[in-house]
């Protein structure tokens, strides 16, 4: 982070990297975000953003404060204070549909080994649990069972009233890094290199107590699992530190597809580039996934890859999509992909299908990034991944958002309000569609005129 501030010695290297990085000029006609609002309330890195409803979101980070914001106006609504150390996990706990006066709740886990439950309408801390042996690193709400799970060194199951229903034995010292619900009351937890499937047993007539049973351990990953995401009802995907991507069947927990060569060097290696890639394990670690019906979008190190589920291959990639590790990606409904990175920028990509022009011969190998490492390659040319059948997709950079001065940790997309990004520079930025905002303001203006009775003056 703050690479551009370090200056001096880093400069030549930075330039070298930039040559490979696709850039876009100031002229970004497709970038709708022409208005920004800087929200500053945190005093440390802001790591998490969670959407509460259509108009609100909460932010949390290393200062232990949770702030609830209005996504439209950027107004700070609530300030939830109670944790003495940094927040390690946060999740929204939607009210039960049956319950009329249910409040929207937030669950937060902190490094102070407590989990708090907050009412985000009143800002009150409803309850706090502090009986944890270790820091809770992930929280998952199982809506169907109306319970939530806490994942630390062990896995606990809790109900809405914060009663501990059951918990597992001590699993590992590193703790659960990711937790995802899969069908049939099962959850999959990533613990180091292992994936552990647990089944939750709800109390029935015969059984009074809740129980959680370890069903299976999956040991296919070579290195620690960094990301774990549900693709759909029947499959989920995991990614590891060394660039392994495995797609699992969610019902019988078998491997549907496995890809281990994201980091594989091209057959025509650019020596310098290669060394750097090998030096930096981070460059091949799979940090985040996002999915739609057809594709999995994978953030691998600094690159972005589009993996087609049917073709079981990468159909488009951008090997150096950012200057630095990509931390979060989200697929938008309008075929756009947004990524944020440690380099402090947010980039907007569009997946475009293109008829491949007569191209250079394609060497074999799945993940051939041939030639991309070459410095002389025109940077503005989108990288295309050619396929055998002649159609190709490309990730086209259509805009970038520059505002944060440090690593952008996460972002949230609101259909109506735009994009919210949070960063290690302690700030949250609300990016808005300036044109739409201007129209909305006009409407509000005339509403106010009407309310004040100035539009049709009384005679």
């Amino acid at each position: 982070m703050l690479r551009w501030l370090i200056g001096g010695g880093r400069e030549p290297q930075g330039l070298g990297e930039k040559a490979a990085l696709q850039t876009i000029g100031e002229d970004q006609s497709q970038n709708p975000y022409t208005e920004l609002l800087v929200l500053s309330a945190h005093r440390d890195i802001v790591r998490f953003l969670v959407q509460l409803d259509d108009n609100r979101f909460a932010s949390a980070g290393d200062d232990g404060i949770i702030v609830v914001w209005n996504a439209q106006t950027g107004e700070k609504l609530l300030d939830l204070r109670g944790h003495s150390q940094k927040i390690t996990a946060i999740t929204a706990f939607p009210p039960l549909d049956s319950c009329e006066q249910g409040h929207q709740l937030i669950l937060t886990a902190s490094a102070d080994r407590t989990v708090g439950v907050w009412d985000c309408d009143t800002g009150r801390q409803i309850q706090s649990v502090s009986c944890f042996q270790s820091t809770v690193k992930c929280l998952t709400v199982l809506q169907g069972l109306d319970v939530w799970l806490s994942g630390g060194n062990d896995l606990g199951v809790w109900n809405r009233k914060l009663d501990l229903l059951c918990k597992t034995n001590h699993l590992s010292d590193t703790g659960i890094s990711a937790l995802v619900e899969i069908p049939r009351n099962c959850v999959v937890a990533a613990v180091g290199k292992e994936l552990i499937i647990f089944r939750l047993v709800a109390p029935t007539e015969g059984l009074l107590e809740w129980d959680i049973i370890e069903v299976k351990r999956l040991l296919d990953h070579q290195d620690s699992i960094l990301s774990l995401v549900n693709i759909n009802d029947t499959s989920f995907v995991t990614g590891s530190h060394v660039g392994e991507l495995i797609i699992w069947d969610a019902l019988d927990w078998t491997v549907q597809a496995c890809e281990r060569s994201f980091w594989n060097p091209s057959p025509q290696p650019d020596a310098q580039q290669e060394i750097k890639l090998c030096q930096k394990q981070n460059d091949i670690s799979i940090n985040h996934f996002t999915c739609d019906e057809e594709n999995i979008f994978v953030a691998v190190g600094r690159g972005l890859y589009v993996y087609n589920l049917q073709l079981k291959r990468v159909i488009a990639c951008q090997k150096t999509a950012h200057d630095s590790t990509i931390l979060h990606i989200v697929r938008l409904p309008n075929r756009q992909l947004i990524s944020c990175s440690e380099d402090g920028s947010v980039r907007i990509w569009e997946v475009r299908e293109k008829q491949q022009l007569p191209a250079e011969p394609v060497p074999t190998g799945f993940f051939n990034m041939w030639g991309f490492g070459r410095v002389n390659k025109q940077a503005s040319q989108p990288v295309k991944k050619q396929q055998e059948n002649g159609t190709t997709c490309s990730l086209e950079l259509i805009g970038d958002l520059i505002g944060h001065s440090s690593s952008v940790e996460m972002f949230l997309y609101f259909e109506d309000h735009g994009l919210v990004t949070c960063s290690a520079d302690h700030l949250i930025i609300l990016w808005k569609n300036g044109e739409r905002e201007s129209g909305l303001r006009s409407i509000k203006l005339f509403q106010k005129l009407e309310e004040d009775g100035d539009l049709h003056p009384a005679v």
Partner: protein
Amino acid sequence: MISAPDVVAFTKEDEYEEEPYNEPALPEEYSVPLFPYASQGANPWSKLSGAKFSRDFILISEFSEQVGPQPLLTIPNDAKVFGTFDLNYFSLRIMSVDYQASFVGHPPGSAYPKLNFVEDSKVVLGDSKEGAFAYVHHLTLYDLEARGFVRPFCMAYISADQHKIMQQFQELSAEFSKASECLKMGNRKAFAGELEKKLKDLDYTRTVLHTETEIQKKANDKGFYTSQAIEKANELANVEKSIIEHQDLLRQIRSYPRQKMKIPALHPGDTEHTQDQAAQVSTTSNPEESANADLYTCRPAYTPKLIKAKSTKCFDKKLKTLEELCDTEYFTQTLAQLSHIEHMFRGDLCYLLTSQIDRALRKQQHITNFLFEDFMEVDDRMEKQENVPSRPSQDRLPSRPVEECPIPKVLISVGSYKSSVESVLIKMEQELGDEEYKEVAAAESSNFDPQENLDYLDMDMKGSISSGESIEVLGTEKSSSVLSKSDSQASLTVPLSPHVVRSKAVSHRTISEDSIEVLSTCPSEALIPDDFKASYPSAINEEEPYADSEGAIHFEASVCPPELGETQEGSLENTPSQIDSSCSIGKASEGQLVPLPTPADTLSDEDGVVSIPPQSSRQKDQGFHVDVEMENTDPSPRDNSCEMFPAYELDPSCLLASRDVSKTSLDNYSDTASYMSSVASTSSDRTLSAHSAGLSSERHKKRAGQNALKFIRQYPFAHPAIYSLLSGRTLVVLGEDETIVRKLVTALSIFVPSYGYYAKPVKHWISSPLHIMDFQKWKLIGLQRVASPASMGTLHTLSRYSRYTSILDLDSKTLRCPLYRGTLVPRLADHRTQIKRGSTYYLHVQSMLTQLCSKAFLYTFCHHLHLPAHSEETQEAVASRQASFLKLNLGLVNEDIRVVQYLAELLKLHYMQESPETTQPLLRFDYVPSFLYKI
């Protein structure tokens, strides 16, 4: 802004008068009366008479019971100002026309001395021998040791220009009333304190005497009283009587009629206390109760001493000074207010009138004027409400009393006041308390014979004044009992241009029979000297200006709000030349359908704080019907503690105010450090020096205008740079030399639109790397270029955020910013302009920007431009309608559209914001390529 002093003297040439109908006449509101002696070939700028003082000043005099009239102090307190002018002589003059027959002492039929709460009297008088004319404000202060407990004082505004005094009478009266009220309030406080001390003394004396008497009684049981004992008993009785008297006085001073102050809200809790105390007659003998008494008793413990019951009239005793008569805080505030007055009325009458008109016109544009006006001036009204003295003081404590300063008495119905010279007929008083002065005013105007009254006036003057033939009393406040219908009297000060006012009045009657008639012209001629009147034939002939006024009405009514869209569009197309004025017209017409605001409304508009706008502007308002209450004017939009804009850093006036101390800071007036230091070093007089703000802002404008001119001439790429500022793209001025950067930033800041009234988003000098927040906050930044490696960060940030900024590099003389191809900026900043003077250029810019604001206003508030005409209309259709409006109706090309759009956005945000602090500024930007310009 709208009227330039440079040209104002020539607005009405003689030949122009001859054929006034050939070309569209300058609206009367924009013109200033001709110099009355112009026909005699006199140079209007020559000194009117052989005045012995160099410029106007304020004199405070006292009629001392020991030595007679004596001058106490002058403001400014500088012997150079009044030169050889004989203050003693003039004090004698002004004190000898004190009309107050305030009866103080033992009124017949009353057992105790009675305090009268006397209204101040306001008199204009002239001394032709001395060449001095003065507005004289008489007041009385209470002093326990003085004869009848009162000390007569007066404050006089002395000028060589008679017309200045006459025409500014209302303003002077309002401002001096503030000062007087402040002084009197402090005096009452001091007087009450004095009374309490005296009561304690008396109480103590009584106890002592009582004990002595008891001892004597015991000592001699012979059954008869010694003469000594009788003496003691008498003394005791005297003391008792004295105590009762003083208690009564204390009760009186405390029960000072609050309703007169009219702003009980400013005395929270205080009022109750007073009522309580009025009920429980005198409580001071009871120590417990006195402890919980209000502010009057909150003073260090006082040790009573033995005193004589009978107060002796001692002429050898030194009388209290003015300062001792008044509570210190209040006294300081009074001086500050007086100093403010002196600054306010400095300069030529023509200039004062121009700026008043200017202010009045700007006030009409209250929706848009925050954009480019000097917020300090825009704030003028607020400033007055808050009583300027409080402004510079960062600690609120000393300013507290000022807020308590009651409103001037002129505006309140003068209930108890009786003038001793009731027959002297004067006008200059507006009783806003009354609501039904319409018919009376009309009736009076028809019956009034100016000449007759003038004679009457003269005659009376001769009769009642015997203090010397060189004194002419030109006017005094009219007592409410003079006229038969006095309680519903509405009158005016001398209008700027009498026939204008008259024509307004006439036209009102024509169009709306039942509208409240607030304008009356009747007595105004009484004050116009014959020779002055000669140049105003229309002031006598009522019918003549009628045609004009009809035009004016048509003008106002041309746009009707219900059909705002079409009408405005149509009129714009037909008469593009009217675009400029449509902004205010639109507002005016909207307001016209609203019932004419009563004066009470006007007052309540201001949120209970009564402001006294110059009379001339009030006339304007009523003439124009511009009291559109579309915007709820927040009386305190300035937020001194605003984190983003420290008041002293952004408020040029603050620093300029201290220029007497640190003249060096003129150029880079917002140097925080130097401001701080100068304030620190002059903390004692900073309250006073703050009043030079008005004048200094003139200098600031001049300076800024000059430097802006220089910039435009020097840099061929001035246009895109100015476009950046106008379109809200932050301009970073990069340079090594702080003074050069600051100078340029100051100059360019005249083009920066503000977010609100608080401050311009300008940062004059910064040396740390910029941050995204900076672009959100500031639209013009002076950035230090350092040669050290540390600056790498600064430059990196700059290039990283280049899409938000335009960068003007002063060292390499380059500019990196988007392309500009509009026509607006070339007119605004023509490098071949004939304008030579900085202040003229500043005014040119202001008027251009006002025009721009009107366009932005139209664009923002045209309903049909922003809302879909029907539910199926697409966003694109609306957008194309907007584009065609901007292009065809407002005549904007290319990038000029962006400017208006940006201003419109600011207008929307400003209009909608509840309070200035809550809304955060937005950063709007465009993804447009930048170009590098070189010389």
